[in-house]
């Protein structure tokens, strides 16, 4: 398959290791991967913060960058982020329509129909659960809210992690509780967000896992930031990083 990677604005600038892992993983599985140059952001941060009108340009750019999928340039688009895929699938067209751009809404819908979150692409489209990864660590998985409630990825990440050689999965208590990130919520309601992520960090530490993983670096940034501050020693890895890790090219954390 020819697959376009939508890195997302956050991963593209501050956490590229999730994007490079996605590229390496898909190539290892025998696919041709592209990283379209025009891509930037899905518009979610602006839409969710109440800047819908301002988000229009962002959405337009996203749809333009990935519209070639409709002409067959790629077979699918994948993003290492549940919430960005949810935004493409459930928000972009709505916002475009509300702000009077019907044609954009239409194209956005078609592009979104070919856009998948990583675990969806692997399990549903490519039909694999064992990607041949090796990750000799204890791991706990935090189901991010948008992956869980908007995309309903369900047990897909669990199936993928379960097939990783050497990986021991530890169940996370109160797993479905939000980590308190919420985009600009973390700044606008800093104290509440801090109290929420403190609870999440407690639950993660209680599992005794060495690594916490999730399908979104945005939530992981919040969680890892709190774990680092407390010197817990628990490290964060995106699901893509774990699945990309092999005996030949093992996970190296922050290295790029």
């Amino acid at each position, binding site marked *: 398959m020819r697959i376009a990677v939508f890195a997302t604005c956050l991963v593209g600038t501050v956490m590229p290791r999730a994007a490079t892992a996605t590229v390496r993983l898909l190539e290892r599985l025998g696919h041709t991967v592209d990283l379209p140059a025009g891509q930037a952001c899905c518009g979610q941060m602006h839409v969710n913060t109440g800047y819908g009108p301002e988000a229009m340009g962002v959405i337009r750019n996203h749809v333009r960058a990935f519209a070639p999928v409709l002409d067959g340039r790629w077979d699918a688009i994948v993003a290492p982020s549940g919430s960005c895929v949810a935004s493409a699938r459930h928000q972009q067209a709505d916002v475009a329509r509300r702000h009077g751009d019907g044609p954009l809404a239409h194209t956005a819908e078609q592009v979104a129909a070919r856009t998948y979150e990583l675990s969806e692409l692997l399990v549903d489209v490519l039909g694999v659960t064992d990607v041949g990864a090796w990750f000799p660590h204890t791991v706990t998985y935090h189901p991010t809210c948008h992956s869980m409630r908007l995309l309903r990825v369900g047990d897909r990440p669990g199936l993928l992690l379960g097939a990783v050689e050497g990986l021991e999965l530890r169940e996370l208590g109160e797993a479905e509780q939000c980590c308190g990130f919420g985009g600009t919520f973390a700044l606008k*309601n800093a104290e509440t967000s801090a109290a929420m992520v403190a609870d999440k960090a407690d639950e993660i530490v209680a599992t005794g896992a060495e690594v916490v993983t999730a399908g979104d670096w945005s939530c992981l940034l919040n969680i890892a930031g709190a774990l680092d501050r407390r010197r817990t020693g628990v490290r964060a890895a995106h699901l893509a990083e774990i699945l990309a890790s092999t005996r030949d090219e093992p996970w190296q954390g922050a290295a790029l």
Partner: protein
Amino acid sequence: MSTYLGMPTVRPHPDTPPAAPLRWGPSFPQAARQTLRDEQLRANLRTATRTIRDKRRRVTAELGDWEQLRDAGAAIKADVMSRLPELLIELEANVTARGGVVHWARDAAEANAIVTGIVRAAGAREVVKVKSMATQEIGLNDALAAVGVDAVETDLAERIVQLAGDMPSHILVPAIHRNRAEIQEIFAHRMGDAPPGLSDEPRALAMAARAHLRARFLRAEVAISGANLAIAETGTVAVVESEGNGRMCLTLPRVLVTAMGIEKVLPTFADLEVFLQLLPRSSTGERMNPYTSMWTGVTPGDGPSEFHLVLLDNGRTRALADELGRQALHCIRCSACLNVCPVYEHTGGHAYGSVYPGPIGAILTPQLLGLGDEGGPFGAHDPTGSLPFASTLCGACYEACPVKIDIPSALIHLRERALHPDGGHPPTATDLAMGAAARVLASGRLLRLAGRAAALVGRVTGGRPIHRLPWPGSLWTRVRDVPGLPRRSLSAWWRDRGSR
């Protein structure tokens, strides 16, 4: 924290009784800063919300058609909103035909004037009350007190809140912020007829409240209630409750006054089938609530001989005008969204500064008051305007809501309204920053540059975590590090590896 000086030590929450029950206090972030410090409150909330959350999950999972029931509830409510005027007129006609009197109140002042007028005409100095959000919302008890009438709340938790001088902090369990030691103290000092040596054993407290309330039930001439729903087709009004206090109020006194938000009307008696399943399972996590009282006008020789129904608008038609926001009017006040909300669980209800806390409060309060439009509050920094931002948009509320109110989408919509008020406003620093960000995020080229800049910082800092940032980054770094930045940008990595 209380100090013991031999005097009543329980202080009311909030400190001074608010003049406007629908909106008091500072913005949500400021109010939350206070409530988050209350460890006792946080512990109470954590235990209480988790217990009720698990109960609800169990009893909703056991119904095979729960999702269909939710769909039916949502569909009936959407139908009601699309023809609210005609349903209300039908309700009025049927209540009137059965001997009831219907009053229409545009706002809190009109509703309070109508109810106090009825109570005074009946010559009562004391009335008994069934727990009701509508009468909380309009501050009816204060209005009655102003004309010398003592309104006695008869729901146990509501009575605790009333005696303490508190505002409620939860829709269903308004005293969720009080523990039993505090309740003992409130009863001992404020009830007037508490038995000497009252202990803080739950049973002792319940028996004291029971004796206290029973005396008032038996002498009451007038009762005031809200309504969980009313049937247009028959003129029937219903109250759903657990303690039996409602049944006493609705049957013993001579005069009954019910104040009801206009959105509570349902078209037909058959609709009860849906809502009497959805409500108890979602609110208390019970298959069926202990008491469901229904009455239709007056019945000679049976129950009150005088019945008044006050139909309250108080901002509801304003909310109805908003195509997306009007979903808030579908709410059946079950409180499931509060119990699953991680923000509510941490801040408690008082941070929302409204009788309607939690996720539903965050979308209902601003709409009842008006948001970003004339007469209403202005912008996201107004206390009311801060409510739609009091959410991470995690979606737990939407998942739990028995009538499928898409609270996250409504929140986003109200955020947009708060930030783009009618007639515009001078841009704030945040507006300017978000505008600039939008330009970068709308361009692959500019974002690549941002990525290279991040990598430059990554090289300078050696890819180490960042512990402190200047404001507004300090809001982040106060409790979290910024994980180390990459030493190489994504675009550089992609370019250097060449296309394969």
